[in-house]
């Protein structure tokens, strides 16, 4: 059937085939060139940032002690804000991820993930505004209330769980049942506190690290959640099924299979959350009070590297000492975030490779 060259020739002559192959090769090369050029430009941009910072700093060999002093203060502020935010974002983000990846009813999961991604898309300036304008004055007189609620709400929920937990059906929907309870509980707590304003803990300023932590933590929560959820969801189904088939309860399957397998992914989620908090500018700028105070007290204001850069850059002369101190701070921030990001990437990549190897061993 292939022995009839006449029919072949009439469809695709050898000359035509050869010419078409050559032209395809040419077009392919051209496009590859465009793609490669694009990549090269992106890489140049990436390299340009640290090179610019280093290049601007190099002419000065020594830094006076005042610069270092200022730098220490800014670094302490950045770390304090980030630590407070991580305390909010990491436990909440990872708990939500554990629920969504393992306990959640699939129909609810299809709804929770996009909802939290919308939270990620809320401009941080909006969160900063809410924190600075509404939350700050309230928090000034209610630090004790917040602390009491942080202890009381989980305690009440745990007690309720022990009392009625065995009767609960449909645990995959539980957070929706808890939501009104939680809101009601918080409202009651706030109402009680409003009648008796507590003077037990009064912050020095309404804009302080605790406020930053709440707002910044909320902003970093979706990132931590989505990376942690991916890590947990990536664990091969056959592993969880094997655990279930051996008689594991849902919680046992989580702690004995999912958490060990996805552990490094959860660490990566925490690191990227921290990195995000270190670099975030707008919330810190609006909610921190921008007061240059070093130290580790969460109830006083702070000034962070990022906020200092945003505020200071327009009003410093490019030759002044203040300018140099800004550049130094920028470089430190860059190094810190790149370092954290690289560690997180390394950890995640190792996790992906291990899970992949296990799934197909």
């Amino acid at each position, binding site marked *: 059937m292939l022995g009839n060259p006449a029919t072949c020739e009439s469809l695709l002559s050898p000359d035509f085939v050869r010419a078409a192959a050559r032209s395809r090769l040419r077009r392919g090369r051209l496009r590859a060139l465009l793609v490669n050029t694009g990549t090269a430009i992106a890489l140049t941009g990436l390299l340009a940032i640290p090179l610019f910072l280093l290049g601007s700093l190099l002419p000065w060999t020594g830094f006076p002690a005042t610069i270092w002093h200022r730098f220490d203060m800014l670094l302490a502020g950045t770390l304090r804000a980030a630590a407070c935010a991580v305390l909010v974002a990491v436990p909440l983000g990872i708990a939500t991820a554990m629920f969504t990846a393992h306990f959640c009813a699939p129909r609810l999961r299809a709804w929770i993930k996009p909802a939290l991604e919308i939270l990620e898309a809320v401009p941080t300036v909006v969160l900063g505004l809410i924190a600075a304008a509404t939350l700050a004055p309230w928090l000034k007189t209610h630090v004790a209330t917040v602390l009491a609620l942080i202890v009381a709400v989980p305690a009440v929920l745990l007690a309720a769980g022990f009392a009625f937990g065995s009767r609960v059906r449909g645990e995959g929907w539980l957070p929706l049942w808890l939501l009104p309870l939680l809101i009601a509980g918080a409202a009651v707590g706030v109402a009680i506190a409003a009648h008796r304003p507590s003077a037990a803990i009064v912050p020095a300023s309404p804009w302080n690290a605790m406020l930053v932590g709440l707002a910044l933590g909320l902003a970093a929560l979706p990132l931590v959640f989505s990376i942690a959820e991916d890590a947990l969801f990536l664990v091969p189904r056959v592993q969880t099924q094997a655990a279930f088939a051996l*008689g594991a309860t849902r919680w046992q399957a989580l702690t004995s299979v999912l958490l060990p397998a996805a552990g490094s992914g959860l660490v990566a989620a925490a690191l990227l959350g921290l990195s995000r908090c270190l670099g975030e500018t707008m919330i810190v700028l609006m909610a921190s009070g921008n007061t240059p105070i070093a130290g580790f007290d969460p109830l006083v204001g702070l000034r962070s590297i990022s906020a200092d850069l945003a505020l200071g850059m327009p009003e410093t002369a490019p030759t002044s000492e203040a300018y140099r101190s800004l550049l130094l701070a920028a470089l430190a921030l860059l190094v810190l975030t790149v370092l954290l990001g690289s560690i997180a990437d390394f950890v995640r990549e190792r996790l992906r490779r291990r899970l992949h190897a296990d799934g197909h061993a």
Partner: protein
Amino acid sequence: MLSSIPEFPSSSIAPAGSAENADTALRTEDLSLWYGARQALDRVDLAIPARRITALIGPSGCGKSSLLRCLNRLNDEIAECRVDGRVLIGDTDAYAKDTLVHDLRRRIGMVFQRPNPFPLSIHDNVAYGLRLLGIRHRRELDERIEAALKSATLWDEVAARLDDSAFSLSLGQQQRLVIARALAVEPEILMLDEPASALDPVSTLRFEELLHELAQRYTLLLVTHNMQQAARVSDFTAFMHQGCLIEFGDTDALFTNPRERRTEDFITGRYG
């Protein structure tokens, strides 16, 4: 445990043939299953004899695996899955409100199509189910692990390297490890979902010998694509088609003299 099974005055199809008075380890009554709007099982009545090998055969998508996953309620994990009818494991109603699902699953071991050991050592794989039960004592763990590995005819090959990763074993060894893992928690029934489909012919032969040995002590329920395997290994065979149980009987009788036209078409290779 098995000896105390009451006689069920039920309409379930017991296998036709020699086992009318054998103990029943597992029984389904009017079992139907839906995934959303799609019906996967249609009123299946089945009585699995104790300490025998029962093979489930049928074309792809006929509901064999779905049936297994109904029996240990692994289908609970799937969204929009609905079950109707009864499943009795011994004298426990699997879908009763007060049934503890995880304990039910412990009583029914399951072996999957591809070996799926945990990314742990050989020792810890077999210890997994025991630790779930709260057994922590080192000596007791070791004894039970050794017994389970011996039952799965793997002990001689791994005794010297229990701390090696389970993935250092060959696929055939991994599948026997997975059986040892299931046996360690002392199930009554062992369900195997096409357990030999990932194995080479020599490992498969070895595996089938193991099934014969296990049938002395356990009730085995074997889903297989391979009709020769069903004929070689099983005492009874159930043929399923499009979610229905078509025929269930003594393996030799079913393969040599099927009562149903569809069974005959399938085993003679006319479809499937």
